[in-house]
Every structure is written in structure tokens, then in C-alpha cells.
């Protein structure tokens, strides 16, 4: 039962509105640094745009989706109104105000530091304060998820926690802990410099703190997608979830091993020892495990649905799936993109192979394929699935939805595959300008052009997505009934305490963080010679 519909809708609408803005910026960036653009503008504008695009897509958009979806899950899975409605609104407004506070200095060119901050570059303090507000707003959500779960468990001591809620709380705990790294970096390192209280900064330590956040944040973005795989997809295609326990184990594995792996972003950084890089590489490899479990379980669930519909044969059942259903289409596209993205990720996580693609366009291609592709396409699916229950009006433009999903899939492939390719050719990332007339660069011109075309396809798809939702707001009223999640093939009557609570897994998560991050952080904090002068960013005369 969804009660606080306005709260949930506010999160989703704000999320998709800022997503639309960031999408336009992204397409513009693809265009200006491609051979399609005859160069005639200030490259600083490019970095301004990249900072805004990254901050919105990385911090604001997925956080709002996770929060809104989290509230929807709490009310519909636990079948009771959300506890802490006022706090939830406060969290929403903190995120909204934080986003504006952060984007004003970025728009003015006072904080073109990119969303990853990159100290010793230091921009206007308001940018960092805005990001902190967004994070604090999301921490309210983390606390509310925990409180609501505890209250439900107290009232229902003998029932297993519904899978969707279990996964949702797992995601919130993961985010609560992983955001600590960037929060420490901003509050104790960057803000004092940005406010003029200090003029030097330990850039190496800052990068280690950021890596604490930067990799696990991807799994925080991913969790709503995985929840949709497990608890929306089997129901939407008329089947059952293959295994409830497998799903819980996947989310638990994310909580435990998604955290102590971030140093694989620092493979070429000198301030972390090679031994710790190896340890992080090992745990990065382990993160493939929950994804492989998920792919197996979801494919098995699809097979169950297909056989219920009369699908036959070892592979023939695939054609009997309801391909007209947008959720079916989105999930299939998502898994394909996850497969390619994951395969590319194996290169990034290997200390040796990474050297050939580090800091090239390969990396940009990789995270756009995983986040923009596999993850965001399921955000669309979540919105399509949830919208009628939130608005009380049916979404009827199924043809438009399918076109939108196809365009997003094609656009993402056309954008990211050439992007990976030019990365292998050695094209560096984070650059506003490439001299395509140069003989060494000209072979990359075609691929970059193709990539830009993909960007435009994504833009069209984004417009269609918003069109579907806006049309839905004006459709005729229709009662969608209670919002339900997938039912597992075998409903467990009793499940082990380990699969129904988080204490053990949070202890392992924090323990592994201490093992893998403790020494590198302690060493850099003790060493005084590691500070460097800050480089203030912002045009000035």
C-alpha cells in the first residue's frame, strides 16, 4: 500500500528533471569534442559542463531514485505507512537545496573541478557544501530505512523480512558507509582549503578517501536495478522468482565486498603501496560473484515464466517470453549491457591490464555502459512499473515505451563501444580538445563521431522517456491496485537469521574496510611531507 505518494513522486520527478538537464549537457559534450564541431569556444566551458553532468548523474539523480524507490518499497513491502514522513521530506529538501547550491558555482565557472573533485584543484566552497547537503539528505533516508525495518521486525518477530525491503536496506547501509570516505575528504581536507583556512592539501590522501566512496557508490546506484531484477521483473512477466535465498546472498555479498576495493581506481597512483593494490584487486574480483548469481537467478526466473507460457526446448523458451512487455525488454537490454560492461571491468580490475587503458576513454566508456546503460535503463523500468500506482493513472503508451527503451539500448551501445575502442588506441579522457587533423589522432575521428551520434540517440530516448511520464500525468484515472513484488518459487516459511538481519554483514564490511584501507590512510595521515599547495580553480584576472 502506497500512502505517501506525493513524497515518492517528488523524488522521482526531481530525479528525472535533473537527469534531463544532465543528459543535454552530456550530448553537448559528446558533440563539442568530436570532429563534428569546428573549434570555436572556451575549453573551460567544457569542464564546467563535465562537472555539472557528473555531479548530477553521480550524486543527485541516482540518490533521488534510490530514496524514492526506497520509500515506495518500505510502504508496499512492509504494508504500513512510512515512519518519519517529515524527516523524509526534510531529506528531500536537503538534496534539492544541495543540488542548487552546488550547481550555482559550477554554472559560474567557479568550481570546474569535475565531480570527482581532483584535489589539489580546489573550487568555490559552495560547490562542496552543496554536495555535502545532498549526502546528508540521503543519510536521513539511510536512517529512516533502518528505523522502519526495525519497527516492522519488532511487530513481526516471526516473519522473514520481505526481500525487496531486505535489499533496499542493504543498499542504504552500503551507501551510509561508503559515503563516509568522500565526506571525510570534503569536510576535513577540501573545505578548509576552499574556505581559505589552509593553503595546502594532501592530494594523495584525498584520492584514497575518494576511492573509498567512488567504487562502492556504483553498487549503491546498482542496488535499485538489482531490486527491480529480483522483485519486479519476475512478477511483470508473469513468472516467479527462482530463489529468494540466492537474492539475499547477492545483496549481502554486495554489502560485504563492494567496499574494500576502491584502490583499483588508484593503480597508477604512487601514494598507495603495490601490496594494497593487489588486495583491492582480489576483492574487486569477488564483486563479480553477486552479479553472476544474479544473472543466473534472473535467467532462471525468466525461464520459469516462459515455460508457464508454453515455452519449449533448451533455448526455444527465449522466444516465448513476453517481448512486448517494456519490463521484459528493459531487463534483457540491461543484462546485455551489464555483460559487456562487466567484461570490460575485468580489464580495469587487473593491476597489469589496467595499465593499458588507465585514464583513457575506455574508462569513460566503461562506466557509461554500466551506469548509463545497465543501471539507468532499469530506473526507466522502475518508473514505468511504479507510475500508475503513484499517479492513479495508467501509462498506456507501450509502443512509445518500447521505442524509448530500444533507442536507449542502441544509443548506449553506439556511444560506448567506439568509446572503448578509442581508449584502446590511447585517447586520453578528461580533455576538451583533440586535434583530429593530426596524423596520430585522425584514425580516431570516425569512432568519436559515431560516439557523438550515440549521444544524440540517447538524448532523443531521454525526451521520449519524459514524454511518457508527462503524458501519464494527464491520462484518465484508473485504479492500479496494490503495488506487489515478485513471489519466489518456494516461499520460505523460516529463513536463517543470517539472511534476515545485517549485524554480521555490517561487521564484516567495516572489518574489511579497516584491513584494506586502514594502513594506507593511517600512513598518509602521519606523513607531513605529502601536502601540496592547492590550485584554485576559477577564471580570474
Amino acid at each position, binding site marked *: 500500500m502506497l500512502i505517501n505518494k506525493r513524497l515518492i513522486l517528488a523524488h522521482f520527478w526531481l530525479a528525472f528533471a535533473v537527469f534531463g538537464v544532465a543528459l543535454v549537457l552530456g550530448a553537448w559534450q559528446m558533440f563539442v569534442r568530436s570532429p563534428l564541431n569546428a573549434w570555436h569556444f572556451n*575549453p*573551460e566551458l567544457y569542464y564546467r559542463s563535465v562537472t555539472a553532468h557528473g555531479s548530477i548523474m553521480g550524486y543527485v539523480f541516482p540518490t533521488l531514485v534510490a530514496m524514492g524507490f526506497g520509500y515506495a518499497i518500505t510502504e508496499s513491502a512492509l504494508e504500513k505507512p512510512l515512519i518519519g514522513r517529515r524527516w523524509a521530506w526534510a531529506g528531500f529538501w536537503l538534496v534539492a537545496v544541495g543540488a542548487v547550491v552546488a550547481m550555482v558555482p559550477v554554472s559560474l565557472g567557479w568550481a570546474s573541478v569535475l565531480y570527482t573533485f581532483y584535489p589539489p584543484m580546489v573550487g568555490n566552497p559552495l560547490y562542496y557544501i552543496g554536495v555535502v547537503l545532498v549526502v546528508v539528505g540521503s543519510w536521513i533516508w539511510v536512517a529512516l530505512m533502518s528505523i522502519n525495518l526495525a519497527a516492522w521486525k519488532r511487530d513481526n518477530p516471526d516473519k522473514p523480512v520481505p526481500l525487496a525491503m531486505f535489499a533496499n536496506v542493504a543498499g542504504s547501509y552500503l551507501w551510509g558507509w561508503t559515503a563516509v570516505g568522500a565526506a571525510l575528504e570534503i569536510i576535513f581536507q577540501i573545505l578548509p582549503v576552499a574556505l581559505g583556512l589552509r593553503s595546502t592539501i594532501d592530494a594523495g590522501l584525498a584520492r584514497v578517501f575518494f576511492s573509498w566512496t567512488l567504487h562502492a557508490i556504483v553498487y549503491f546506484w546498482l542496488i535499485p536495478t538489482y531490486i527491480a531484477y529480483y522483485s519486479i521483473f519476475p512478477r511483470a512477466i508473469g513468472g516467479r522468482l527462482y530463489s529468494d535465498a540466492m537474492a539475499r546472498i547477492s545483496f549481502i555479498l554486495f554489502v560485504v565486498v563492494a567496499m574494500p576495493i576502491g584502490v583499483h581506481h588508484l593503480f597508477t597512483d604512487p601514494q598507495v*603501496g603495490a601490496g594494497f593494490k593487489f*588486495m583491492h584487486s582480489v*576483492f574487486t574480483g*569477488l564483486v563479480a560473484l553477486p552479479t553472476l548469481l544474479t544473472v543466473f537467478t534472473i535467467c532462471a526466473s525468466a525461464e520459469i515464466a516462459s515455460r508457464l507460457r508454453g515455452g519449449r526446448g533448451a533455448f526455444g523458451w527465449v522466444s516465448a517470453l513476453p517481448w512486448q512487455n517494456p519490463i521484459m525488454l528493459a531487463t534483457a537490454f540491461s543484462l546485455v549491457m551489464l555483460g559487456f560492461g562487466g567484461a570490460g571491468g575485468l580489464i580495469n580490475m587487473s593491476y597489469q591490464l589496467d595499465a593499458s587503458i588507465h585514464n583513457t576513454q575506455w574508462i569513460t566508456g566503461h562506466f557509461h555502459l554500466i551506469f548509463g546503460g545497465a543501471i539507468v535503463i532499469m530506473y526507466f523500468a522502475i518508473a514505468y512499473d511504479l507510475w500508475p500506482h503513484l499517479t492513479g493513472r495508467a501509462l498506456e503508451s507501450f509502443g512509445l515505451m518500447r521505442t524509448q527503451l530500444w533507442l536507449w539500448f542502441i544509443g548506449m551501445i553506439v556511444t560506448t563501444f567506439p568509446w572503448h575502442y578509442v581508449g584502446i588506441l590511447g585517447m586520453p579522457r578528461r580533455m576538451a580538445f583533440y586535434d583530429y587533423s593530426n596524423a596520430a589522432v585522425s584514425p580516431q575521428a570516425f569512432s568519436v563521431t559515431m560516439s557523438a551520434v550515440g549521444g544524440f540517440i540517447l538524448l532523443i530516448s531521454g525526451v521520449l522517456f519524459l514524454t511518457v511520464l508527462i503524458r501519464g500525468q494527464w491520462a484518465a484515472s484508473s485504479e492500479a491496485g496494490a503495488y506487489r513484488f515478485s513471489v519466489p518459487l518456494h516461499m520460505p516459511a523460516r529463513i536463517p537469521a543470517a539472511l534476515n538481519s545485517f549485524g554480521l554483514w555490517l561487521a564484516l564490511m567495516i572489518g*574489511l574496510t579497516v584491513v584494506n584501507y586502514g594502513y594506507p590512510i593511517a600512513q598518509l595521515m602521519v606523513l607531513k611531507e605529502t601536502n601540496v599547495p592547492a590550485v584554485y580553480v576559477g577564471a580570474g584576472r
Partner: protein
Amino acid sequence: MSDQKLFSLRNPWFSTSVGVTVVIAVLATLAGLIWLPLAQPDLKLSGIWDAICSAAGVPRASSQAGSVQADFKTSDVVMTSEMLTRPSQVSIGRGATLAQRCAICHGPQGVSDANSPNLAGQFAAVTYKELNDFKTGARVNVIMTPFAVNMTNQDMLDVAAYYSYLPRVPRSHADAKIPAPLIVTTGAPMRNIAPCGSCHGDIDTKAGSPWLGGQSAVYIKAQLHAFASGTRRNDISQQMRNIARQMTAEEIDQVAHYYEAQP
């Protein structure tokens, strides 16, 4: 729910998950901190403890014996972006008096048509560094060196503060309509030339980079050629020499005239 206690070694979920995690963490640590470093003969490690320290990233003082020393005097000024940005009024006043002797070439208001640098409004850190380099011999000039050798450190700070305090005045050559050459806005990435504007203003201003707007074209050209030929070498870490060597004569001409026409 299951009534079995979770945090107990008798609970298989607890013992297995903690056991597997510990085993993986220990194996990864042993491999990363001991086995892999010892497997690399190039590291020349003396034992297990040495291997652990090396792989954990414990810093070691490197030997200075093999380092190459320049056979000429290099600049000893350490630049930071905050350097000399808040001069005192006393310092500016003293600088104004000291600057009397500079006026014949640099103009009574820090601007002249003598093709010497226009110092009015120049960043204090820049003027100070050049004076200091003339004094130490890192930069040599028949006219400036004799002036600088007799200045105290405080004199140089004061003169620099005074010139940074003076307003930049529009020059006779100002022409804001001249389009910025490509080398100024985008540089030449394939020749490893960053855009001039990314350090010298317009796009961004970096510590130690002079403001070039309104400088004499003759002076800018002469300095770029001096950097390219190596007759001037007081730029820290060869920043300008590496750029000037890669610039064509035509580009040098373009930037000189562009910056001369800027305010």
C-alpha cells in the same frame, strides 16, 4: 525466525562467512605483501620485513648520489598560489619609493613604450621571482642584474607589492577585437603545448605565470626565442622552455601581437 544465535561459532552461517572472509583476506595479504614482492628480483629486497614495507608503500629516503645537478644556476624561488597575494600598505609605500629607480625603463606608473615589461598590475609573486632570479644569477640581463644584486629580499618584496598595487592601464596598442590564436585557446596537444590562456589568464591563472595582457610584442617575442634557444632558463622545471621549443616562429609572432593588444 530461526532462534539460533547468529554471533556464535556454532552457527554455520557465522562460522562459514567469517571463516571464508578471513581466509581470503589473509591469503590476499600474504600474496600482496610477501609473495608477490619477493617474486620480483628487480626490487632487490633483503627479506620478508623489507618486502612487507616495500609492498605496503612505506616511504624510503632515496639516495641523492645519482641525481643530476644542473651546471648553471637554477631559480630558488618556491611558488605557491597564495604567495604575496596580501601585501601590507607599508610594503607598497616602501616599494613606491624604491621603484623610482625603475621608472626610466618601466615607466613612472609601471607602463612605458620602451619595450621593457609593463609592471603595473603584475602579480607580486611574478615580479618578486624575476628580481630574485636576477639577484641569484638564475636569469641574466646586462641592465637588470646590476640593479638586482644590490637589493635586499625586503626591497624585492616591496617593489613587487608596489607594482601589483598599480592599476593596469589601457595601452596604445589595445585592440580587443583581435581573435585569440588557437595556441592561446587550445594549445597544441600533440606537441605537448598547453593553451597559453590556461596559465596566463583568460582561462585560468596559475601561480608564477605573469599576466601578459598589454606587454610589448617585442619583449614577448624576445623571451620566447630566449626560452627556445636556452639562453633564458630560470623557468621552474623547464615549463616555458619545453613549450617555446615546440612553437613555430609564426605562432610566437601571433601570441606576441595578440597579448600586446589585450588589456
